[in-house]
């Protein structure tokens, strides 16, 4: 081979090297080596391949680039293009120039040798060349993520040189925020950060380590001027650039701004973080509780406006979430961010809270919210896990879609929160806040319920429309499959949590939670008689200054706070005078006052509570008291009972016979209706298939049933409450809450009534009142008043307290010794002007009966006043009657005979004495008739019969309030019927005149004939006649009108007396 040129020798050398390199045979004399050499030579020399063609190679290069792009190997494609370009423009060892054939042939060689470049895991292998190009990259910023390096022992963690690790140590540990992102830095800090990064320049020598870092650490997009992440150059993923370019081209004034590019995943993650309550974010910024979107954030595949509008939407939700979160933190007392004391209002309020008793209604509300947020965050976590798993594509819109039911709920919660909590001006008393919150929830439930139904209807209608439009194009044969398709759609709609009833369910569970403190207060009150409400949040407040064993306890102890929604003003309605009826009237006059849900049973609650407290304070002698405490442990609280009833109602609501019957009827009705509609629709297309029509109709109904059945089978309240709908909500309350309260009310008040009647002789005291004030104990009182009347007759002074009391004690002590100590009589000083008439002599005489507690709640001093008025009237009548009854004929006749002897001539001039005496007799009888009629009327017709009625009602009185009312009614009735009312005072005056006349008459009679002039008889007669006539006319008129049936007997008897004279 001497003829070989140097060139060929070199070629030979290289070939040998190649072979020895590949076969690792060092011995060139080896047989195998020789064979390989021969093979190589023959191939090199005698081949049929074309020379490398620059165009072909270039085409291949482009082809590979495109292929990589298609495979979305963006980084690979980019580096491929760049590397080949660079290679072609660089010199080769022994070749002059660039882009020579040699270049292309080398590339061609590599292309031939290449082994499916798109398929390899090249992207996971280090590429020193590219990282070298990015050598200026700021590693320190990469490392701000920090944790990967700190945790250290990753198997593939690159080894650092000593210097580098020292540098790492010298770097300050960077605090990691919740999100792992720092954006809330002042420019100053930013600058420092930049300085730091300048100082710490990383020179990572080993290519592997760089690649590792690049793949394991998030690009720090939150840093200004952060490097752009590599992304596809495909049109789809460059919409922003294209649009930007378009704007730039079309608008001469368009100024491209500096934007920070983020990936959609980053946006999604920030969104999730925002929803989970993280405050320091890059894309979303918190400003005084407001969440705003950064303007300069863009993703490559969306235009700025598009992204912004989506993010604005999210920010609104985020704001709601953060507001609710803040509220939760405030109430639970720990701020999410520890701030210096005094600076933050929330911290000061929380410190203030610690001293105040806990506001349980808000706490319960917060607890309910918290429970909801737990589930919400679970969902967020699931989404984040999905993102991490990378099993499926997670886009922003898919995340929003997935969260949409939650977001709708959050909007609703926020609205409820705003109206129920946030809008309440600071400084409002707790009772207002609590009742306002409960009212808001209550109203929201009802509102959403009706809205929910409407929207459900509209949904089904719209589906029906779509279906109608579609089926115009669908042949009948396809119709059946179409039917099943719709069945599927319907089912999926059912499953969607978006249904408004879910919101109602959420509201309901919120309400159930929030109402808990109230119900517990009520429970504590009506079971133990103890209104435990340290935060003063219940609508009824105990007035501390009134002790239980006070006479005013029943009226003045509790204040009912009534909240008027319209004026937002607080009104204290002290349910005085008429018991709780005052509160009742007030509540009926204002529709939105106080806690609406308690309104129907408010009276019962108040009654039961007051009764219970009273009962607890009475030393009950009942036997059930000792084991009361042991029973209390087993006793279920009102709230538990309520929950249980709600659950059973939801579970068995369908089972109740009446329900199913009506439901079936309803179903049948709507089925027929639906069928007709569907049939009409089908006929429009000339399709007459009644079976199909029925099936369609059934489909729509099924949807409703399905939902109810589905939710009804669940035991957990939160789930099962989904079926609580509009009509049923109030029904639910009525059937689940009110009966328990009602039962408790009946029990309490029954107990109280029993105790009062049995142990405290309530009935006995009422009887005593009638005995002494209404003179039912005739014999006793007769002894008393006749003593007085006798004194008057004898013209002695009877107005001495000692005398009166002695008489009273003597009279009472004989027959009712137990009452003698309680009864006493007083004389009220009366202005002398009123004492002109003899009948008014008795005025000022007041009987007093010391009623012991607690009976004085019923028989109050006001009652005694009325009793006294009647008592006085009775005394006056009795006096008149007595003075007429005690007149003796002999008094008059004896005196007359005396006179007859002395002055016979005188008297003969006028009338004979006998005739005058006879006139006196007649007048006396007339007066007696009148007085007796009146006496009869009042004692029997009025007092006795009314008393019987009263006794009957008292036996049936359910609660103390009712009893008090009955007593009052009784008193006012007798007051009325005794003509003591102002309105009929003219009647009373006439009667008084007659009584007066009687007294004068008897006085004259007593004085004897001749002590007065004969004209006075005429005067008395005419006076009496006038009064009598007047009364008869008046009473007749009243009787004829029929307005006073009880007066009938009086009118008749008076009339009878009148006709006779």
């Amino acid at each position, binding site marked *: 081979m001497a003829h070989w040129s140097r*060139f060929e020798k*070199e*070629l030979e050398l*290289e*070939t040998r*090297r*190649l*072979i020895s*390199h*590949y*076969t*690792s045979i060092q011995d060139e004399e080896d047989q*195998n080596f020789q064979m*390989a050499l021969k*093979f*190589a030579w023959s*191939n*090199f020399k005698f*081949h049929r*391949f*074309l*020379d*490398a063609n620059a165009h072909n190679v270039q085409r291949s290069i482009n082809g*590979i680039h495109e292929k990589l792009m298609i495979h979305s190997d963006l980084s*690979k494609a980019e*580096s*491929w293009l760049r*590397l*080949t370009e*660079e*290679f072609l423009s*660089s*010199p*080769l*060892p*022994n*070749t002059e120039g660039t882009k020579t054939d*040699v270049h292309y*042939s*080398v*590339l*061609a*060689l*590599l*292309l*031939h*040798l*290449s*082994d*499916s*470049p798109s398929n*390899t895991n*090249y992207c996971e*292998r280090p*590429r*020193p*060349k*590219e990282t070298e190009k990015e050598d200026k990259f700021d590693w320190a910023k990469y490392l701000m993520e920090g944790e990967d390096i700190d945790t250290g022992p990753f198997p593939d963690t690159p080894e650092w040189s000593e210097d580098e690790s020292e540098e790492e140590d010298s770097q300050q540990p960077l605090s990691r925020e919740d999100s792992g992102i720092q954006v809330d830095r002042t420019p100053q800090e930013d600058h420092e950060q930049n300085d730091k990064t300048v100082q710490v320049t990383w020179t990572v020598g080993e290519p592997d380590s760089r690649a590792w870092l690049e793949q394991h650490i998030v690009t720090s997009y939150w840093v200004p001027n952060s490097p752009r992440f590599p992304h596809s150059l495909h049109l789809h993923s460059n919409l922003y650039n294209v649009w930007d370019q378009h704007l730039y081209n079309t608008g001469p004034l368009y100024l491209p701004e500096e934007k920070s590019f983020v990936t959609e995943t980053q946006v999604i993650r920030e969104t999730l973080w925002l929803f989970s309550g993280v405050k320091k974010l890059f894309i979303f910024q918190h400003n005084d509780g407001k969440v705003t979107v950064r303007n300069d954030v863009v993703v490559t595949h969306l235009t700025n406006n598009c992204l912004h509008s989506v993010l604005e939407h999210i920010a609104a939700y985020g704001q709601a979430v953060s507001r609710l979160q803040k509220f939760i933190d405030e109430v639970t007392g720990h701020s999410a961010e520890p701030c210096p004391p005094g600076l933050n209002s929330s911290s000061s309020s929380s410190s203030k809270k610690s001293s105040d008793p806990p506001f349980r209604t808000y706490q319960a509300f917060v607890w309910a919210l918290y429970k909801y947020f737990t589930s919400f965050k679970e969902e967020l976590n699931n989404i984040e896990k999905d993102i991490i798993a990378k099993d499926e594509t997670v886009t922003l819109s898919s995340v929003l879609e997935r969260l949409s039911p939650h977001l709708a709920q959050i909007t609703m919660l926020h609205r409820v929160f705003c109206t129920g909590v946030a809008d309440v001006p600071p400084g409002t008393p707790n009772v207002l806040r609590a009742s306002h919150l409960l009212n808001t929830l209550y109203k929201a439930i009802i509102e959403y319920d009706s809205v929910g139904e409407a929207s459900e209807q509209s949904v089904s209608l719209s589906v029906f429309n779509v279906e109608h439009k579609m089926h115009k194009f669908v042949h009948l044969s396809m119709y059946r499959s179409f039917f099943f398709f719709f069945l599927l759609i319907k089912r999926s709609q059912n499953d969607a949590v978006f249904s408004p009833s879910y919101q109602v369910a959420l509201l309901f569970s919120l309400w159930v939670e929030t109402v808990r403190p109230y119900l517990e207060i009520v429970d504590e009150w009506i079971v133990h008689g103890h209104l435990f409400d340290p935060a003063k949040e219940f609508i009824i407040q105990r007035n501390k200054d009134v002790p239980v064993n006070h006479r005013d306890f029943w009226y003045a102890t509790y204040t009912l706070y009534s909240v008027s929604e319209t004026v937002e003003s607080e009104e204290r309605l002290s349910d005085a005078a008429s018991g709780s009826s005052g509160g009742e009237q007030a509540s009926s006059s204002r529709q939105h006052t106080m806690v609406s849900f308690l309104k129907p049973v408010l009276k019962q609650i108040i009654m039961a509570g007051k009764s219970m407290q009273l009962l607890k304070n009475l030393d009950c002698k009942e036997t059930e008291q000792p084991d009361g405490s042991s029973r209390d442990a087993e006793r279920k609280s009102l709230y538990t009972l309520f929950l249980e009833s709600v659950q059973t109602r939801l579970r068995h609501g369908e089972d109740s016979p009446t329900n199913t019957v009506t439901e079936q009827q309803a179903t049948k009705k709507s089925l027929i209706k639906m069928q007709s509609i569907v049939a009409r629709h089908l006929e429009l297309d000339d399709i007459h298939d009644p079976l199909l029509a029925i099936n369609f109709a059934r489909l729509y109904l099924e949807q409703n049933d399905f939902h109810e059945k589905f939710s009804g089978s669940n035991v957990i309240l939160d789930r099962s409450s989904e079926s609580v709908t509009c009509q049923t909500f109030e029904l639910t309350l009525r059937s689940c809450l009110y009966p328990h309260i009602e039962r408790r009310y009946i029990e309490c008040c029954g107990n109280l009534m029993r105790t009062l009647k049995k142990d405290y002789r309530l009935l006995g005291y009422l009887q005593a009142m009638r005995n002494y004030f209404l003179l039912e104990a005739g014999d006793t009182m007769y002894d008393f008043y006749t003593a007085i009347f006798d004194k008057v007759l004898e013209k002695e002074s009877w107005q001495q307290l000692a005398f009166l009391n002695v008489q009273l004690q003597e009279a009472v002590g004989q027959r009712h010794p137990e009452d003698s100590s309680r009864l006493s009589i007083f004389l009220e000083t009366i202005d002398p002007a009123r004492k002109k008439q003899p009948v008014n002599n008795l005025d000022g005489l007041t009987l007093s009966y010391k009623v012991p507690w607690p009976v004085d709640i019923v028989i109050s001093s006001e009652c005694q006043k009325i009793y006294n008025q009647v008592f006085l009237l009775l005394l006056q009548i009795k006096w008149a009657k007595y003075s007429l009854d005690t007149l003796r004929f002999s008094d008059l006749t004896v005196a007359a005979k005396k006179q007859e002897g002395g002055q016979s001539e005188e008297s003969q001039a006028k009338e004979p004495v006998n005739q005058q005496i006879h006139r006196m007799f007649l007048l006396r009888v007339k007066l007696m008739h009148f007085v007796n009629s009146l006496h009869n009327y009042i004692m029997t017709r009025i007092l006795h019969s009314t008393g019987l009625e009263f006794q009957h009602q008292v036996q049936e009185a359910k609660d103390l309030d009712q009893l008090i009312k009955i007593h009052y009614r009784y008193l006012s009735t007798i007051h009325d019927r005794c003509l003591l009312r102002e309105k009929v005072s003219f009647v009373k005056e006439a009667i008084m005149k007659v009584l007066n006349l009687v007294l004068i008459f008897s006085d004259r009679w007593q004085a004897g004939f001749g002590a007065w002039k004969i004209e006075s008889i005429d005067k008395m007669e005419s006076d009496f006649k006038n009064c009598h006539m007047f009364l008869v006319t008046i009473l007749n008129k009243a009787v004829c009108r029929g307005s006073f049936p009880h007066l009938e007997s009086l009118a008749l008897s008076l009339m009878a007396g009148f006709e006779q004279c």
Partner: protein
Amino acid sequence: MASHASANMNAVRETMDVLLEISRLLNTGLDMESLSICVRLCEQGINPEALSSVIKELRRASDSLKASENSTSQG
């Protein structure tokens, strides 16, 4: 001149680095040494396609040789 030569050397080394990157990207399985041999061969006018077929053949042969050696040593 020496500086020019050294500059040229650096340029060539860079070229070779780029080339190695490309070969890695393409998954050719060539290392630096074989790559430089190939470049030199190409510079000497060897047809790249022929060279590639030779390399493939050599790889295959060497693999099979090693495999047979392994099997004989084991047997």
